[in-house]
């Protein structure tokens, strides 16, 4: 894991930006942490390490992250994993592959959480999405508002 990225200091911010928007360096650190989650969601991420590397106490880090993104880092990591799973389930990938490739270690916890969030099991969601795509390819005009259908015809 490229944790050293978080070891960078943020001395390069412009003084003008600091004057215009106080504590800009704090934003840069939190944004880097968010981008780290975006890029490494599939790996085993230890959120304690992220807060350490971002030079924050764990409590301070969680508080700032939640203030900016409306979710704790852990909630955000789960959100990213679920969104990626939804994308992968638009293909015919096996559910187990999807589960492990977005960073879950157990099928049952993945399925349970997925259902709680989307109100569908991963396989129901996948079936629905695959049918929708088939329909989109066969009857594309069904997905286009009437005025554009007229223009097209």
């Amino acid at each position, binding site marked *: 894991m490229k944790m050293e990225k978080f070891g960078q200091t943020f001395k390069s911010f412009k003084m003008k*930006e600091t004057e*215009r*928007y106080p504590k*800009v360096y704090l*934003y*840069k650190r*939190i*944004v880097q942490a*968010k*981008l780290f989650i975006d890029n490494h969601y599939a790996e085993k991420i230890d959120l304690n390490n992220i807060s350490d590397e971002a030079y924050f106490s764990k409590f301070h880090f969680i508080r700032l992250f939640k*203030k*900016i*993104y*409306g979710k704790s880092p852990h909630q955000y990591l789960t959100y990213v994993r679920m969104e990626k799973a939804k994308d992968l389930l638009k293909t015919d990938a096996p559910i187990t592959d999807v589960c492990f490739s977005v960073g879950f270690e157990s099928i049952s916890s993945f399925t349970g959480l997925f259902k709680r969030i989307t109100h569908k099991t991963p396989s129901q969601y996948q079936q629905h999405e695959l049918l929708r795509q088939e329909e*989109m*390819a066969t009857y*594309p005009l069904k*997905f*286009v*508002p009437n005025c*554009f259908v007229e*223009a*097209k015809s």
Partner: protein
Amino acid sequence: MVTKLSHSIIYVLNQDSAYDFYVNRLGFKVHTDAPMGPGARWLTVTPPDQPNLEIILMAIQEGMIFKEDPAKQMKELVKNGTFGFGAFECNDLMATYEELKSKGVVFKKPPTKEFYGYEALFVDDSGNWFSLGEKKEV
């Protein structure tokens, strides 16, 4: 009675490039991506918190909307940054600015305090510009 806005259009020079910009950089979701015959594609995206508002990324090309000359004129106008197609909202302007900048999004104006609040202006891959601000409690 009109009840809601379901679709809005952004005219783009290239749909592949627009897909990359709106999905991979701005973080929008693809709603519909349907082939519409040779050289035509119906591509819509939605902002993360507005899954029912489809933004049509409409290619400026001769065919469905434009005749040949208007298509050429429209391309030039878009390329030259004539159009501001809307105002986007985010939870935290400075964080969003830093993130989008790190993803290569070009800003015409960084977060700046105006009399109406903080605002930034960014440009998409075609040349369309947008205002970016924080949600206001009215």
